[in-house]
């Protein structure tokens, strides 16, 4: 059957069974506009139909959680009347189809999720993954995504203060573009996505609605890629950061003056979502007049108006007597506004267009009655084969292996990327991109907010449960080395096709691993996102969860530990678990051997808690703390040397131990005798000094050389060399 002759529901991405559910729910044939609404709201992207049942496993409660999963963003209490709002999202498929706009609108969307809660967005982090840069297509995608993030983030005026970059062949046909946002607000400014009580007026704020992004959630984000994917380019939205900037300022003024009952952003599923979700949450109905919607194209049909994902729009719910004041605020900030709806008693969402009722459905059914799938899962046979083949050792001399690793674009300097992002706006960035966690001060308080985002597809391919847990522990340690204590997690779960039982197994194992680690640390998951169908031509990506960790430092160490504070004569200590030389899933294995085998070292919850607590304490007295992760001890020490412009000598150990990525370890660098280390596992591994880096007995490597190789890892590839 060709596309044109398919029934409407299939063209909208709905299965026959899902169509039957709509029939049963409405007890009649749906109108085209109704079918459009159900198709986007019941899409995988909006309804989490394959994952929802399993996400309940996450621990979500803690005394400091103000708003947990389910709202536009999670909110936690920082004390003294301050709250933080955080959220992570993916824009993987749009970024493959159109990298600049895909990445740009990802930034726009995550910002709206955060300022919908009443918070001013203060920082962004991007986690981006591509195929190898020797392929021109991947260079095009990487460049497009980075300039898209820069183009939108810089212009909208929210600094991008960190993130992650990874390269692996599994992302060649399906790059990953995730973005996290943090906002800060006073408790009295918290706003929820509620439609309020009957009589409340719905005002659509922001950019005019057009045909861009129609079916983005259902057609693009919830299906796999094949050769025809490029034809989906019209399903990618186009962003306008200037409109978003004005929208942010206008909304913040509305919150500040207490003019709104609730707010909902228009992202995936557009008006369908921004009317049904707030009404469903409030247990009310609503009348919506599509003729009142301000449009930038003529002749749009009702389904188009309801499905459009035009960017930079918000729905505000306002008491009738305040409507004029809200419209005046919109006018001051030079954004368009239109009264488009009225909240009603009952539970029916009624939509009119050109004088006719085009939809009449139970509002809550669009969100609450979405299908729920418990898809079959199966432990993959191939993973047993991988586990049965232990990781090989390293045959290169350590110095040579180190140079290979520092030349890897995922390990080398990120300056080519982060210097294209404004990462200093708002004068809060104490620790910016390129290190472990970012650290932002909260002016007028002694608080510091630390954020680290961590993903690792290699680890999770070889052991999704251990991998998921280790990511949480690593992110916790990354915020701890800035002086913060971990507080809350958001996660972005990027996986392949959930209709494959092996992919569902990976997913469930990962959820279990993340949950166990969060429980061990006593921190809640306050929000997240699931991105399935990351496969192209039948090949799935590695399971790639990304964990975003928020930590609170109070007081914030001033100055905090910085790699650049290392100086001649200081000692290098490794604190935490004694590593094994197991290289399964390590960067060394990927870079030096090109194959992933073996089973990664299992995490140890007790050790994880201990190192996090110790690091957060030592951050107040030790000049340099650095997490040991990609590339192991050798790369961690090299990064200190590069940042501080001074060499080091590492004592003679087995090469495997130098590059092992075993968890729960960090390095501390300090003048001899200047620090009392707590009781527990800690080893002196070397000293800072000279202008070379010597790894055991291997030939010392000149500091200038490692600095240059590290600096040039991305630029030389982007130059096409």
């Amino acid at each position, binding site marked *: 059957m060709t596309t044109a002759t398919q029934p409407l529901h299939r063209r909208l991405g709905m299965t026959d069974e899902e169509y039957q559910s709509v029939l049963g729910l409405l007890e009649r044939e749906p109108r085209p506009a109704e079918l459009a609404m159900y198709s986007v709201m019941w899409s995988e992207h909006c309804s989490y139909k394959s994952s929802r049942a399993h996400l309940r496993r996450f621990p979500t409660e803690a005394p400091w959680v103000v708003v947990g999963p389910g709202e536009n963003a999670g909110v936690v209490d920082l004390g003294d009347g301050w709250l933080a709002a955080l959220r992570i999202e993916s824009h993987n498929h749009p970024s493959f189809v159109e990298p600049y706009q895909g990445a740009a609108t990802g930034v726009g969307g995550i910002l709206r999720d955060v300022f919908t809660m009443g918070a001013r967005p203060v920082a962004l982090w991007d986690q981006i993954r591509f195929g190898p840069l020797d392929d021109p297509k991947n260079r095009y995608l990487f460049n497009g995504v980075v300039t898209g993030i820069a183009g939108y983030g810089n212009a909208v005026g929210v600094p991008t203060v960190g993130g992650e970059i990874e390269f692996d062949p599994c992302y060649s046909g399906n790059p990953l573009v995730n973005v996290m946002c943090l906002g800060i607000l006073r408790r009295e400014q918290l706003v929820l996505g509620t439609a309020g009580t009957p009589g409340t007026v719905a005002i659509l704020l922001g950019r005019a609605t057009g045909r861009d992004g129609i079916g983005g959630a259902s057609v693009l984000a919830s299906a796999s890629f094949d050769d025809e994917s490029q034809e989906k380019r019209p399903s990618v939205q186009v962003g306008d950061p200037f409109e978003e900037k004005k929208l942010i300022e206008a909304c913040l003024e509305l919150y500040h003056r207490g003019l709104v009952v609730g707010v909902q952003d228009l992202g995936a599923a557009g008006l369908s979502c921004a009317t049904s979700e707030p009404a469903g949450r409030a247990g009310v109905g609503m009348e919506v007049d599509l003729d009142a919607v301000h449009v930038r194209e003529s002749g749009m049909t009702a389904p188009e108006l309801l499905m459009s994902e035009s960017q930079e729009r918000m729905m505000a719910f306002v008491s009738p007597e305040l409507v004029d004041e809200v419209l005046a605020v919109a006018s001051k900030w030079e954004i368009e506004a239109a009264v488009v709806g009225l909240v009603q008693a009952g539970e029916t969402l009624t939509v009119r267009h050109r004088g006719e009722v085009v939809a009449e459905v139970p509002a809550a059914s669009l969100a609450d009655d979405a299908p729920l799938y418990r898809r079959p899962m199966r432990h993959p046979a191939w993973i047993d084969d991988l586990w049965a083949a232990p990781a090989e050792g390293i045959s290169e001399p350590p110095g040579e292996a180190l140079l290979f690793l520092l030349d890897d674009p995922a390990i080398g300097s990120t300056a080519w990327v982060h210097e294209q992002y*404004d990462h200093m*706006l708002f*004068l809060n960035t104490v620790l910016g991109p390129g290190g472990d966690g970012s650290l932002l001060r909260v002016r007028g308080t002694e608080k510091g907010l630390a954020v680290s985002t961590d993903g690792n597809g290699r680890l999770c391919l070889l052991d999704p449960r251990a991998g998921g847990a280790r990511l949480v522990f690593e992110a916790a340690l990354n915020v701890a080395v800035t002086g913060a204590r971990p507080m809350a997690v958001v996660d972005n779960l990027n996986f392949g096709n959930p209709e494959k039982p092996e992919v569902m197994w990976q997913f469930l194992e990962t959820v279990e691993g993340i949950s166990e680690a969060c429980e061990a640390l006593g921190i809640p998951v306050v929000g997240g996102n699931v991105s399935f169908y990351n496969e192209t031509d039948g090949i799935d990506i590695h399971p790639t969860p990304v964990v975003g960790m928020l930590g609170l430092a109070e007081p914030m160490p001033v100055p905090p530990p910085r790699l650049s504070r290392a100086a001649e004569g200081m000692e290098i200590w490794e604190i935490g678990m004694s590593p094994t030389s197991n290289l399964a899933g390590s960067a060394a294995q990927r870079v030096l051997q090109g194959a992933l085998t073996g089973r990664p070292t299992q995490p140890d919850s007790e050790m994880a808690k201990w190192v996090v607590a110790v690091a957060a304490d030592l951050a107040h007295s030790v000049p340099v703390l650095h997490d040991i992760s990609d590339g192991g001890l050798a790369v961690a020490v090299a990064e200190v040397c590069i940042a501080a412009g001074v060499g080091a000598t590492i004592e003679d150990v087995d090469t495997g131990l130098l590059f092992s990525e075993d968890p729960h370890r960090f390095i501390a660098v300090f003048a001899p005798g200047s620090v009392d280390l707590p009781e527990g596992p800690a080893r002196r591994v070397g000293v800072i000094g000279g202008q070379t880096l010597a790894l055991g007995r291997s030939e010392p490597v000149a500091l200038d050389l490692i600095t240059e190789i590290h600096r040039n890892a991305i630029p030389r590839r982007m130059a096409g060399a």
Partner: protein
Amino acid sequence: MRAAVVVFPGTNCEHDVVHALTALGGQAELVWHRETDLTGFDGVVLPGGFAHGDYLRTGAIARFSPVMAEVERMAEEGLPVLGICNGFQILCESGLLPGALIANRDLAFICRFVELEVVDTGTILTGAAELGQRIRIPLNSYEGNWVDPGGSGRIALRYVDDPNGSQGSAAAVATAKGNVVGVMPHPERGVDELLGSGDGRVLIEGFLHSMVPA
């Protein structure tokens, strides 16, 4: 000593500028771009950002904002007028400063610390600095490459290692009288060592000292 800090739609450094001015003892007030009377202000700052989205060309729309008539009046009266980054672009576009700002030499946005040298202390930005003084503050721009075909610009600060191709390595440019200055790097991002540098303080102080009560 009260400075107006102009906010265009799309401006984003206004709060940072107010913070820097007040942290160093000045008074500052945000002024919306539709304001038509700046009487009572002793100086004005056009902060960084993307005024009117930088659409058409940086500063091309902002120069027509109602407030610009007052900025021109203050410039003519000899009051200090400082444009930072996007503000510099707006001052060039409105003809208050010579030259224009075009895309960086490498066609990429640049956000990092740069080192500057003070080459002229006779301006409202550099009056508190010493000739030859080195200043390290952040640059944050895509169109930061200053060209001045007429050659009439008075360079106040130069890049030690030119990052963007600016004519004469100019990082800050003044009028002949020295009361109108555009600076591409951000002095307000350099007032706190905790964030990487306090070198911008001497420039902010220069601006504050140049304001005499009207």
